[in-house]
């Protein structure tokens, strides 16, 4: 048996011990309910039935996630406070909340202290970017020094990065309406916005597994792929001015976008984590496997984590592709058109379906699957980026 018993008992899922709600759980449920009702009262005139349903569904999901994964509550509260701070500052400068155009908005962002340095979308995203880099470096430093303390700092930085990233997205959502009421949309509509979403979701999914597996030693590997995404984001911002808020093309004006895109990015994020765990696995495997004095977790744990990530990614990617098909049936006249993006989504799906069959039914374990997970990320990256760059089709919202 390779995992020490005490470690296993520590990480026992709550189901086994029974699932009882405590006072703080009720407080959490009440907070989610209250926030949802407030959001509905505030913005219901902008929402149709589907969007109200999405709000309700998000509240359910958020509530359940917080009950199941406690640290997520503190995270939500911090994001809530930061996002409300942004709303408050914008509300102070623009009491009516009416659209004032990009130049006037940027003037306000330039003169308000909180907005300028913390909570306007651009500042928050810059904070996220810096924190992702710091977190990556700190995780590797912690790994090198075998210091749990340093790793905790790294984890704190990662949490902060995710908090600023999410705040940036929420602030950007509000800003789009302040620039022009017609421009207003959830910021998951182009390559720039989904890169932020990718960074936030991947960080959160990793932090979840970090807690569940009680191992912070993989942080550097996972944060490395997020740091790469951030580097692209920064180039995209400063090289191409992609951060400017643009209105939506008619095809994207749909409530489907609110669910299709995030579901997709849970998938992409989880696949990215699996690949980076695969890298860690291969490195350890190259260095001779498990030893008494290891920095990295046991191979069996890495293997298990790799499977968990791919399973999560596969489940969400399945949902995302089905949602995409349903949206396509409404926007493009058919649920499946063999459009390059659709086809590549299918290729990604088939690839991981094959991976899962080999592991679950054939019982494959080890380096082969780790290699496959790494190659899987290359295929996924092509579906995510390559299709937009090299192939033409209906799905060309994020061109470079």
């Amino acid at each position, binding site marked *: 048996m390779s995992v020490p018993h005490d470690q296993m008992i520590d990480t026992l899922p709550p189901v086994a011990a029974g699932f009882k709600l405590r006072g703080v759980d009720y407080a959490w449920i009440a907070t989610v309910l209250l926030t949802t009702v407030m959001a509905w009262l505030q913005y219901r005139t902008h929402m149709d039935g589907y969007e109200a349903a999405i709000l309700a569904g998000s509240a359910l999901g958020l509530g359940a996630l917080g009950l199941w994964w406690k640290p997520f509550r503190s995270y939500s509260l911090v994001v809530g406070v930061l996002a409300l701070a942004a709303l408050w500052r914008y509300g102070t400068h623009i009491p009516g909340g009416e659209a004032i155009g990009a130049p006037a908005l940027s003037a306000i962002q330039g003169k308000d202290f909180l907005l300028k340095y913390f909570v306007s979308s651009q500042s928050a995203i810059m904070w996220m970017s810096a924190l992702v880099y710091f977190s990556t470096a700190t995780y590797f430093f912690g790994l090198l020094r075998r210091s749990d303390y340093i790793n905790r700092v790294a984890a704190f930085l990662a949490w902060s990065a995710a908090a600023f990233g999410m705040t940036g997205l929420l602030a950007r959502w509000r800003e789009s309406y302040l620039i022009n009421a017609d421009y207003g949309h959830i910021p998951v509509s182009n390559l720039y916005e989904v890169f932020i979403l990718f960074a936030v979701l991947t960080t959160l999914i990793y932090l979840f597994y970090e807690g569940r597996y009680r191992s912070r030693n993989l942080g550097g590997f996972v944060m490395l792929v997020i740091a790469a995404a951030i580097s692209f984001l920064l180039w995209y911002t400063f090289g191409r001015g992609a951060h400017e808020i643009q209105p939506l093309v008619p095809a994207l004006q749909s409530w489907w976008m609110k669910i299709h895109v995030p579901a997709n990015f849970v998938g992409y994020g989880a696949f990215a984590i699996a690949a980076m765990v695969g890298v860690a696995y291969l490195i350890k495997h190259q260095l001779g496997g498990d030893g008494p004095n290891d920095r990295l977790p046991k191979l069996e744990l890495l293997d298990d984590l790799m499977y968990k990530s791919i399973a999560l990614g596969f489940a969400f990617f399945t949902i995302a592709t089905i949602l995409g098909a349903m949206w396509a049936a409404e926007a493009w006249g058919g649920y499946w058109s063999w459009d390059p993006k659709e086809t590549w989504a299918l*290729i990604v799906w088939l690839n991981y379906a094959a991976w899962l069959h080999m592991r679950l039914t054939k019982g494959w374990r080890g380096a082969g699957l780790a290699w496959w997970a790494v190659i899987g990320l290359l295929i996924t990256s092509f579906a995510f980026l390559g299709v937009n760059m090299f192939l033409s089709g209906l799905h060309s919202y994020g061109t470079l």
Partner: protein
Amino acid sequence: MSNATAARPLPQRSLSARLFEWLGSMSLAVTLLIALALASVIGTVLQQNQPYNAYLAKFGPFWFEVFRVLGLYDVYGAAWFIVILVFLVTSTSICVWRNAPRMLRDMRELRTGVQENSLRNFRHHAQWTSATDARALAPTLAARMSQFGYRTRMETRDEHTVIAARKGGLNRLGYIFTHVGIVVICLGGLLDSKLYLQWREATGALKVETRDISASEVPPESRLPPGNPSFRGNVNVSEGGQSKVLFLNVRDGYVVQELPFSIELKDFRIEHYDNGQPKSFESDLLIHDPEHLNEPLAKTIAVNHPLIYRGFAIYQANFGDGGSKIPLRAWQLIGEVGKSQEIEGAVFKSLGFGLMGQKYTIEISDFRLFNINPMEGKDGQIEQKNFGPSVVFRLRDEAGQAREYENYLAPVPMNGHSYFLSGMRERIGQPMRFLYIPADRDGRIEGFMGFLARLHDREKITAIVEELMQEMRGATPDVADKLDTTARDAIVNVVDQFLAGGFDAIGRDIEARVPEAQRQAAMDTTFRVLQSILGRLYIQLHNERGWGDPTEDDARFLEDAVNAINGLSLYGSPLYLQMTGFTQIQASGLQITRSPGKDVVYFGSLLLTLGVFMMFYIHHRRQWVLLKPGKEGTLVLLAGTDSRRSLDFEREFEALRNRMNETLSNSPTAPSSPA
């Protein structure tokens, strides 16, 4: 998908049994998944369903034919691709067929008939001896297991008591859902495929039309009846027009699909954002269906908001011009230059005319209401600017050669002056080169055309040259003597050269005639003389029009006009078509589909989603406790298994073992942890 049979000994079996085995094997399934993925790549790299001519031009005759035979221009409809899909569906179905009974049994069954030895062989097992009697102990231990979410069944046989425990049976159902879901999705897809069309074509009842003719001219053998159960096609309807058919693209041609009702387009609208980007496309439709509707059904469709009528889904897919009326004034640029004539133009209309013994055709192809272009503003910032309406047409000569032009209705202001823009390109895909015709003081094109006409007027030119020579005689009599009629003709010739080929033609002529040493001087003199003529000509025009004293603007106009005339030599058209107005008629591009399999596909998707989550997040686990009286007390043996090896189960087993430890209070005799 199954490895259950792998270990079974292979007695002599029939070929069909072995085929069945192979079709349902895991290796085949995974191979098919990968094969499908690789095949799918082809269609994303090679653009599908393009005109065959485009492929021919790209690959050349040999590879064009190879790729055509391989079906690469419509990979997802190619026979071999369908074969892969059919194999995948068959393989999946066989897997489900073979495994479902066992899985369903797993879900219900709580087998108590287990042997002590087999339990000891489990990877996860533990044992204790307890002083407590087995009958008293059993319910307590069963309760412990229930706390971990297990369903239990107890049975006492002879001396032995066995507690069988199971949880997560839905995991097995998840397997069935997932795989049945895939099969259902594929069957739904089959319902929505072009089966009917292909069957008609295979039986010779349908012929693909490749000619560019109007829908009403398409013969009956290229038409499909309204009864076609599934199709996806397009049709453009002009504002005020109706359509009772649509077009289905088939390879390098099309067939006409008839509809059981007709669609009228009342109005088509595009709204724009303040930055010029389109914000919405909307069509007001009227469905005429006397058999089913007392009065026509009015409905507005937009992107993301289709109309579903009698199982036909009507989508806003595209838009274009529906034959806008465009009055034109054709200015002659050769022959009687400056003469003009009114023409009634319309988009999609061809106009033939003859000029100077040549025949030409004008094919008006498009009208654009807005032309948003980036332009440098006053402060050097790039701004989006609307250049206003334009007309696009091709001018085809007798040889069939065509150039494309785009002319703007209104003069476009640039740096304080206004120009009539006319873009020209010789080939599709080339960038447009623009001719900038300066607007005159009144903002009209007449000034320029008048100037151009004068330049072509031999009498006027001769008079000016005469006048020029007189002045020179007065200034330098000795030079003047040398100027004779030959010189005068030479000067007139310079003007002709300029008109025919611009400054370049004059330059080339001098290079050909004058030795290199004197070339620069000759050039200077010639251009000075030409400039002087052009200037005088303009003053004449200016005075004739009564525009008062010449200003800076006149100097600029002259310069622009001369540049424009210089550019005319490359313009390639004997006419300048001035747009004088427009009546826009738009067309809406509708996509109409009938997909009876959609709900089947959605049902399959639901099964797939549920199945995937059940498989990943519900764990099918079985545990047994065997209680047996022994010499030192009751022997308690715990053993368990997960349908798949996972760390989670090991953790749970540890926790269960520890709980049992507490319950049994005795320390385990041989707590063999999971081997």
